[in-house]
């Protein structure tokens, strides 16, 4: 009997896993003993880290897009469609447009994050962001002409994609404005919802002095409650009001409704064993990347490493062997600290991050990785 593995989501986690399985299970796929289907609702794969560079005019959104068909191994069935229901009892999936349901033996959820700006009144009208293609280009159009006033970056809620990106944006903006001779005409303020500048205390302790050196103002315990686009003010639940001329926000994030409807977790995140990545509420279901509620950052490197673990576990299960591979929380992250310098962190569940001194070499390493990312997506790196 053919074992059917279905992966929902063609982002980093889903694509790396599909290619990992194509390689790992090549004999079984060739023999027709296994079938792997990757379902995505868009025919293109998006590499979101490119968006950080768009507002500075350094990259174009198209630099972060490739047809999934070019990235995914031919041994994988690629289905461009939207899953509308998951029945974990009968192990079946429903699709949009009345297509017949499809059964699975193993299901992997890699559905990622979605932006929910409507949670905050005024955010959609008043705030720019670089967390979507249209957001990044809209911000670029505004930012390239911004020469003076109050620049506020507000992190609204966590978890959000790429926890380092808000720090990167203000460090890059500071440097970019200095290079253009505009820094003295622009005040930069960074807000964060808890009492430090980043969720991870070690990264927060490293970043805070850099922000002081660079004259970046900080407002902590700032949870945006509303934005008044007319008055150009942002007000927090804690009662602080800030004026802005240009507001850049990290909008609230959520997962997909599908997951909550299937009883797999709240807010679109799947409750999983943080080591095995198996769903707690259903058999034969895994989750990885942003979708898996593990407490590690929503980062591409996390999805990449988790895909390797899920690939090994699925191959073991399909071959009737005990699944022994586990995820240890490994996360790698470059952190831009300006337009030509970056830091780097590596950490896991047991070992905290220790940010490297910023250097030009690390900045170029980050840019080099961005170029070679397509090898990661293909499962080669």
């Amino acid at each position: 009997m053919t074992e059917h593995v279905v992966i929902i989501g063609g982002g980093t986690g889903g694509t790396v896993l599909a290619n990992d399985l194509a390689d790992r299970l090549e004999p079984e796929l060739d023999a027709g003993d296994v079938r792997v289907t990757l379902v995505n609702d868009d025919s293109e794969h998006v590499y979101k880290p490119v968006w950080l560079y768009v507002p500075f005019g350094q990259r174009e959104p198209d630099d972060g897009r490739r047809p999934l068909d070019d990235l995914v191994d031919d041994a994988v069935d690629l289905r461009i469609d939207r899953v509308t229901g998951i029945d974990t009892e009968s192990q079946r999936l429903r699709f949009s447009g009345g297509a017949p349901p499809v059964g699975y033996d193993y299901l992997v959820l890699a559905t990622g994050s979605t932006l929910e700006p409507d949670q905050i009144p005024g955010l959609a009208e008043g705030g720019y962001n670089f967390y979507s293609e249209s957001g990044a280009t809209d911000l670029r159009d505004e930012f390239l002409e911004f020469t003076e006033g109050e620049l506020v970056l507000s992190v609204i809620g966590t978890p959000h994609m790429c926890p380092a990106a808000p720090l990167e944006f203000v460090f890059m903006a500071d440097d970019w404005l200095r290079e253009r001779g505009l820094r003295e005409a622009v005040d930069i303020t960074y807000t964060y919802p808890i009492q430090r500048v980043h969720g991870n205390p070690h990264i927060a302790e490293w970043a805070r002095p850099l922000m002081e050196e660079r004259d970046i103002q900080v407002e902590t315990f700032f949870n945006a409650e509303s934005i008044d686009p007319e008055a150009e003010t942002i007000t927090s639940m804690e009662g602080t009001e800030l004026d802005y001329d240009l507001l850049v926000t990290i909008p609230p994030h959520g997962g997909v409704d599908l997951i909550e409807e299937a009883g797999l977790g709240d807010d679109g995140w799947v409750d999983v064993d943080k080591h095995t990545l198996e769903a707690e509420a259903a058999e034969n279901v895994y989750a990885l990347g942003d979708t898996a509620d593990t407490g590690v950052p929503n980062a591409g490197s996390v999805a990449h490493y988790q895909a390797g673990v899920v690939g090994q576990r699925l191959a073991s299960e399909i071959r009737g062997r005990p699944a022994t591979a586990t995820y240890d929380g490994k996360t790698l992250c470059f952190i831009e600290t300006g337009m030509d310098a970056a830091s780097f962190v590596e950490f896991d569940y047991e070992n905290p991050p220790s940010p490297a001194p910023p250097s030009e070499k690390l900045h170029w390493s980050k840019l080099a990785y961005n170029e070679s990312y397509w090898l990661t997506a293909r499962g080669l790196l």
Partner: protein
Amino acid sequence: MTDIDHDETVDARGAACPGPLMDLIGTVRSSESGDVIRLLSDNEQSLTDVPEWAEKAGNELLAVEEFDDYNAFYVEKA
């Protein structure tokens, strides 16, 4: 055992910092003034995070109840 009535419980046991505080903030955000939220957290950091945030935000921390392996925080929205 406290006898404080609460309108909602947020079970953040097992969540890494700042998960419990952010879960509490998210629930307070969608609550009505006067609602009492009970936060369950086994994260030690919550013992400082939650009182500091409640004070900063003007909400009242009514009680902290200690159990063997977690704490329960009762926060009333201002």
